[in-house]
């Protein structure tokens, strides 16, 4: 083997990518040729220096929890990571006519997200005594969880979501193929308010405030079923 033939193969030999026969030929040449030997030594030194001195960046602590799909709670942050864009876009496109509607907007965006990404549920259970304790320590208030199966709305589970920049409980109900989100968040001192309907972007939306908690019900179930559910959940007479 000549130097011209050998030189291009040095790196392959170094990287362990050379077939057995060529390895022998290259080594044979290196044993006889000082110039190629020096080039090989230089290449080897470069690799060793790189591995010795280049840093391998360690995953910063806490980063994993911020990565979609890797959150410790097993809830893919994809929900709000992807949703942050949707929410931002929604806020940008739909000018907010009144104060307070930004929240409704967020709730609708969160609802739409839960449909699109098929990540509606963190804790899957039709049992309110399973869903309620799941939220403990996650949202900062006790989440009233009730089943409305008798009215045709089956509790499917719960999900931790974010509205108004803070954790919110999302209770998920099913009615046939429809999925309904009932968002619950701290009312921050707002007084009780009866359920009222405020549809947004084709979604049926109901909101009310009760006992220090704000509720937003979002779904694509038509009236009068949605209203009946809202009034039942709000503890009002139908």
């Amino acid at each position, binding site marked *: 083997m000549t130097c011209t033939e050998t030189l291009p193969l040095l790196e392959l030999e170094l990287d362990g990518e050379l077939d057995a026969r060529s390895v022998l030929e290259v080594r044979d040449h290196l044993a006889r040729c000082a110039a190629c030997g020096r080039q090989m030594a230089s290449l080897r030194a*470069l690799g060793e220096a790189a591995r010795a*001195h280049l840093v391998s960046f360690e995953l910063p602590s806490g*980063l994993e929890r911020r*990565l*979609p799909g890797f959150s410790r709670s097993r809830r893919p942050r*994809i929900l709000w990571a992807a949703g942050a864009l949707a929410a931002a876009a929604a806020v940008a496109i739909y000018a907010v006519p009144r104060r307070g509607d930004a929240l409704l907007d967020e709730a609708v965006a969160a609802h739409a997200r839960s449909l699109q990404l098929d990540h509606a549920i963190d804790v899957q259970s039709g049992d309110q005594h399973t869903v309620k304790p799941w939220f403990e320590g996650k949202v900062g208030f006790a989440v009233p969880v009730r089943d409305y199966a008798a009215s045709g709305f089956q509790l499917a589970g719960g999900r931790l979501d974010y509205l108004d920049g803070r954790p919110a409980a999302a209770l998920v109900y099913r009615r046939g193929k429809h999925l309904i989100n009932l968002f619950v968040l701290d009312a921050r001192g707002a007084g009780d308010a009866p359920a009222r309907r405020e549809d947004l972007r084709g979604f049926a939306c109901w909101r009310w405030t009760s006992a220090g908690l704000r509720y937003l019900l979002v779904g694509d179930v038509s009236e009068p079923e949605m209203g009946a559910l809202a009034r039942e959940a709000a503890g009002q007479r139908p």
Partner: protein
Amino acid sequence: MKEAAKVDAFQRALGPHLRAAWNLARWLVRDPADAEDVLQEACIRAFRHFDGFRGERARGWLLSIVRNACWSFLSRRGLPGETFDEERDSAAVVPLQLSPGPETELLRIDQARRIREEVEALRPEFREAFILRELEGLSYKEIAEVTAVPLGTVMSRLSRARRELQARLGDQGRKASVS
């Protein structure tokens, strides 16, 4: 796939390779905050396409998604001159290997800095090949898959990277490893 099962499988398959993904993102986009954005974007993509993933070569699969996210970030930003913040990067990193001995400490730090600066100065496609090979230990075939280029291109990029580093570092590379 059911949600919980999917998250489970996702974390099992890709969790072990997050460090490599982060390392690649840091070397390619440099800024830690940008790298985090890129990695988040990559994870969203990975999660979305995870159903189509068959469980083989998880590392290569994740790295190719991360690397694509890095490149689209770099092209969005228009590949400006990259800056290197010595203090910030020194604080955030863990050297791969420390040779003991206070007498060589200053020399070692200087060599480490020079090598890092020169690798930084490589064109991103050369740097990418070099990092994947030398730091992550990927084979040519794996690098070809991750970077979506033919094997021959991998070899020539690696070769170019090494030639440039040899030329710029002069004898430094050799001394560094021998010391």
